[in-house]
């Protein structure tokens, strides 16, 4: 394995992310934070939502930010670089197995998703306070879940980025990303679906459910959530599946 090439590519991605930092900041945080402000502050403040909603909302918003960042950071460049600009060709010709380039993309996406996740906590907390009841009894478990969520976002980005045509980017967001967020237990806990038993079972195919519920289980364990074991199994399973699909499609795109 050529680690020099691997880290040089990671450095390239970090350099590009740093250059686009302000744009990335707005792209990642503006919409979720507006949602936090309206639903967590305005709706709760005016009595339309119960005060507990503030605490329930924060892990879901963190999940949205992480998953959005990871998918965006990995899928969008891949779609463009493979099809339109062909920018990736120079890195495909670097002296390294091409699978490692895909893995480098996943590592870069994971790091960006983690950064987004940890930056949105204080921002959302500042917008929501007082009344947010964050409680992290097991920081290591929280870190593991956050890492698995970040990995899910990046492997999802890899699988999507290597499966989509450039002309289908709009469809990708309206047919895949938007339903995933709305049915991903981000704005409500999984237990809120108790009265919709069919939907409650159906949403379990959505990996974002495990991400949101996992963050809830480790950040606000006093509220109902999926068992942590189920969360970890779900995330590991989807990460492995998406990585396998992503790597296979990455090879298909790289070599004709």
């Amino acid at each position, binding site marked *: 394995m*050529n680690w*020099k*090439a691997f880290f*040089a*590519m990671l*450095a*390239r991605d970090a*350099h*590009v992310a740093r*250059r*686009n930092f302000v744009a990335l900041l707005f792209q990642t945080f503006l919409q979720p934070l507006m949602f936090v402000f309206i639903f967590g502050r305005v709706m709760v403040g005016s009595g339309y939502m119960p005060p507990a909603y503030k605490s329930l909302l924060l892990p879901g918003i963190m999940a949205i930010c992480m998953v959005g960042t990871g998918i965006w950071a990995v899928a969008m460049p891949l779609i463009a670089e*493979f*099809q339109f*600009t*062909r*920018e*990736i*060709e*120079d*890195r*495909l*010709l*670097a*002296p*390294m*197995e*091409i699978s490692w380039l895909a893995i480098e993309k996943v590592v870069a996406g994971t790091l960006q998703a983690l950064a987004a996740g940890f930056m949105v906590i204080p921002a959302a907390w500042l917008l929501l306070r007082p009344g947010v009841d964050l409680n992290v009894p097991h920081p290591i478990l929280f870190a593991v879940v956050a890492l698995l969520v970040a990995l899910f976002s990046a492997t999802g980005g890899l699988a999507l980025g290597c499966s989509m045509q450039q002309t289908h980017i709009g469809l990708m967001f309206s047919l895949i990303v938007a339903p995933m967020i709305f049915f991903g237990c981000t704005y409500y806990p999984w237990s809120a679906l108790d009265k919709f038993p069919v939907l409650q079972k159906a949403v379990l195919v959505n990996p974002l459910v495990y991400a949101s519920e996992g963050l809830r289980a480790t950040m606000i364990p006093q509220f109902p959530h999926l068992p942590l074991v189920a969360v970890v199994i779900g995330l590991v399973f989807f990460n492995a599946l998406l990585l396998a699909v992503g790597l296979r499609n990455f090879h298909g*795109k*790289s*070599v*004709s």
Partner: protein
Amino acid sequence: MVAGIRTRDLRKVYTSAPPVAAGTGGFSFGAPKAKGKQPRPEIVALDGISLEILPGEIFCLLGPNGAGKSTTVGVLTTRVRPTSGQAFIGEHDVWKEQVAVKRLIGVVAQRPNLDFSLTAREILAFHGAYFGISSHERAERAEALLDRFKLTDRADQMVRGFSGGMMQRLSIARAMMHDPQVLFLDEPSAGLDPQTRLLLWEIVREYNQSGKTILLTTHNMEEADALCKRLAIIDHGRVIALGTPQELKASVPGGYLLRLRFGLHSPDLLQRLQRLAGVREVRATDGNGADLYADRSGSLVAEVANLASAAGVELCDVHISEPSLENLFLHHTGRSLRE
């Protein structure tokens, strides 16, 4: 150690449109192959290419669009997996030792594929980093290449705003950044102005003189003639002629080509033309035309006109070609490279 290039009976058959890695399309269509219920059209891009390019040689693949030049380069540069056959860079099998091969090669693709998120200098520096070149050395090499390719004044600008010619120059500089033993240039002078083309030729010759092997594809005969020690003419995925430009030009019967067009088709006239002194071969072409290969040119025109007049056939058009690779291509395929 300088590395050469070897291919053995390379075949590439696509069953769907060739994707990005194969360069631009335009292939010959073979017989459809029945697979299950739905027959899928087979596109034969390479049909048994065997080449031996010596270490330190400038070798050219000359052929029209869709002949298989880019696919050959794709196979040799780990981007197109051959359906069958073998490809070697030096002693390394391209499809078994990809990483070792990638260390030896530099590639300039047919279409610019620069990293649009970086400046020109960063593109060179990161490329060097992928190949493990130290930070100090990368900075020095990048500076020297930017200067050589006359890009110093735009070195710290994003390449998105570069002209086509500047992008092409930077692509070539990038391919040379890690000092590869074998340099692939796929249609390098397409879209370049004459001045930049001359600069490119000069740089290619200079790079070759430092002992490097260069494989260049082009459909420009002047370029092949001016740059290459040897060349292969390919068409429909096959090598149709191979040798030095002089050998190939000399292999055309007579050397000169007179493309004639008459008012009507007259097999009798063609037979008479064949008997003229110096005429080596006469071929009827589409319509009422004839291609006449001969060892002289201008002095034949009056004789051809006299024969046509005696046969009652009007001579409508005469085009004389000096001995050239174009004549060779026409002789082999019946088509012009420019068509």
